[in-house]
């Protein structure tokens, strides 16, 4: 089995896995980073969203062999103290219900804010439309992204 050296959350981590293993399962099963969630496995729900090279990426369909030297950012590395403007806004707005989709929601929003620090309502809706929240927390997700964008 090949060994992959991955740059994750600013650290070099290593995993012995088959080339087609999705980044999601490398993170969860091999590197102990379980904040990134498995929802559908077919790039439909966004629960597994991480950043690869700064862009929102669905790790459930992204093979580890494609990562190469690109930096990977997961929810665990989004901020050191859990105080990224989105994380603070998520708490302030009290977004989460069951909470399972929220890491993926936050990572999707973080990639948006990085590219577009002051997104319009339409930008937010268009971007977040790809992430499913089965609990229906969409109103607060929208509100929290907006709030974070005003504070960042």
């Amino acid at each position, binding site marked *: 089995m090949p060994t992959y050296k991955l740059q994750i959350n600013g650290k070099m981590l290593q995993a012995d896995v088959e080339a087609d293993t999705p980044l999601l399962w490398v993170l969860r*099963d091999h590197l102990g980073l379980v*904040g990134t969630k498995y929802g559908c496995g077919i790039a439909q729900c966004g629960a597994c969203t991480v950043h690869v090279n700064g862009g929102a990426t669905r790790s459930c369909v992204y093979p580890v062999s494609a990562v190469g030297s690109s930096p990977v950012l997961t929810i665990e590395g989004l901020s050191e103290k859990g105080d990224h403007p989105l994380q603070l806004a998520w708490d302030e707005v009290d977004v989460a219900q*069951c909470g*399972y989709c929220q890491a993926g929601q936050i990572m999707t929003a973080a990639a948006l804010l990085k590219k577009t620090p002051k997104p319009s309502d339409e930008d937010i809706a268009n971007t977040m439309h790809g992430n499913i929240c089965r609990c229906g927390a*969409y109103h607060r997700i929208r509100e929290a992204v907006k709030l974070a964008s005003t504070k960042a």
Partner: protein
Amino acid sequence: MENVTNSRRDFLKKSAMTGGGLVLGFNWFNVEAAPVIVADSAIAAGNIGFNSYLSIAADGIITIMSPNPELGQNIMTSFPMVVAEELEADWTKVKVLQANLDNKFQRQLTGGSGAVPHSWKLLRTAGATAKAMLIQAAAQKWGFPAAECSAAIGFVTHPSGKKSGYGDLAEAASKVPVPTDVKLKDRKDFKIIGTRVRNVENKKIVTGKPLFGMDVYREGMLFAMVQRPESFGMKLKSVDAAAAKAMPGIVDVVTFKNNVAVVGKSTWQVMKARKLLKVEYEKDGAIESTDDHNKLFLSLMDTGTATVRRKDGDVDAAFKNAAKVVKGEYQCPFLSHSPMEPMNFFADVRADGIELIGPTQTPAGARSQVSKLLNVPEDKITLQLTRLGGGFGRRLQNDYALEAAEVSSLMKAPIKLVWSKEDDMTGGVYRPAVRYRFEAALDASGNLTGYKLRGVGINSGNSTRENNFPSGAVDNLLIDSVEHKSPITTGAWRAPITNFLAYAEQSFLDEVAQAAGKDPVAFRLELLEKAKAKPVGDIRYDINRMIGVIKLAAEKSGWGKNKNVSQGFSVYFSHASYVAQVAEVEMQSGMPVVKKIFAIADCGQVVNLGGARQQVMGGVVDGFGHAMYSKLSFKDGAAEQKNYNTYRLIRMKEIPEVETHFVDNGIDPTGLGEPALPPTGGAVANAIFKATGKRLRSQPFIDQDVFKAIS
């Protein structure tokens, strides 16, 4: 505020109870019994008759143990809020522990919107008792009568200027006799209850901490996935696992019942190997398709053997003498629960006992079922609860926990058993598909003189709620149901039965109001006034509370006043609470668009305003989303939708604005996890009728003609 998962033995340690303090034990299911002081040693032994604890440590930290599974209903926040209110605690000093399964927790489940209503008085009494003891301890220390002392925000004070923190008083308070007649606060003095308090687990959720069953990893643990028959009505015939077993990382393939489990060293290796299984199935029962069900619905509606659920007066006479008869039929498809977190459970079956960890709405059920399955006494089985990534009723069943235990027992290894999303959707326990026929008899002045409802459902049990409104308001009424038994498995789905019955019934009442030439709101109020003045038979709902939400909904939505939008009305009573909704529809390029939904809830006293709003808004989005977009259909016994690419769930751009209001009547809490969902489909269908003149007779609405061009 922080919280951790906790075994009862760890309670003292985690509640910082090392330097002495006050520990009250109370009995979670015995509402009448007063709390009792518990000695540290008794808790450590883990064998006393208390199942909830409230402790106050020398450092002032207050720890409350919450026994109910948390799946997003926010019980881990609202439960301690109630205790803290009566205790006059400083909320920043309150810690919550998620209790593990305990023999004594008799209502340690999440379902039926019952957690807060059940524990309301109990939790208040526990808090008030501790407060009284702290006051007594301070009074003794200072030499004043207790009546002169008072408590607020974690301190006891006396008008002389004396002041002591709860932490300093806790040890002395533990020596004071437990009062049995504490006075509960007047609700006008509530400082925490009814306010918006943030979810105590927010920080962990937004930083990706391991909280869920899926996040359980253990040294030496193996991963398992199970191949089940893809069609209902089939059973296992033969397995050729050679190719799967030869794959890297695969430890074994084991067969039990109709299941083939692939066990390996990582999730991905198991997923890949599983595709190489060659499994043959053979017929074991009826192989049904949605087309068959559609035909069955029509024939059983006329010829099925019906069970009478309620009969008042003489319906035949009422219909014979009617000036006008209205008939309407409505149908709803099967639905999958599809919580975001797929089914999973950890099991370690060893010679000395069984360890279970995972998400379940019924932990006690999981343990007793595993006990029976493996013939191991319950006291040799521990169950640690994880946070649930959604439940919606699916995790009332413990089939996946049993599978984990069975595979662990076969493999003699710790196992994490995981379902894929496809397994979740094709693996059964669905909301049943149901068709309803309603008939109404009207007299010459448009009064409802007769009412008939027949529900025909597939594995739906009683698909009616015979004692709900309009029962009690109609002199002549007949409600019955027909059930078709199918190999397709069904189960409770958030707001069981009412999640589709309410849509059908509220649409039909709209039809009747229209036929009677009456405004839908006025028509309902008229019926309720009649039920009040001249009740027919047994009435199980509170007429005044229902009138209350209807009137408030009409007021808040400006019912009938805004001519630019088409409004639809709906009101429903379920799980002891009352919710009225008004949906507003606008036409955009020839299509109806749902712009806004007003939801007015009477759930008695709101505990956490934030959590309550979440439940109502989430319930509306859930009710709207499923009515609008979701269906699970079958072809030759197999679910046709297998993942989110074909099973459509509502997404952000599709949500209407939702405005929530709560009736403030001071009644004890009556539940809110489900009641906001049932009315939504009806309000939306009625608004769309208003806008288009078309009745939406089946779900999902998106498949109906009015939406044809945009689906």
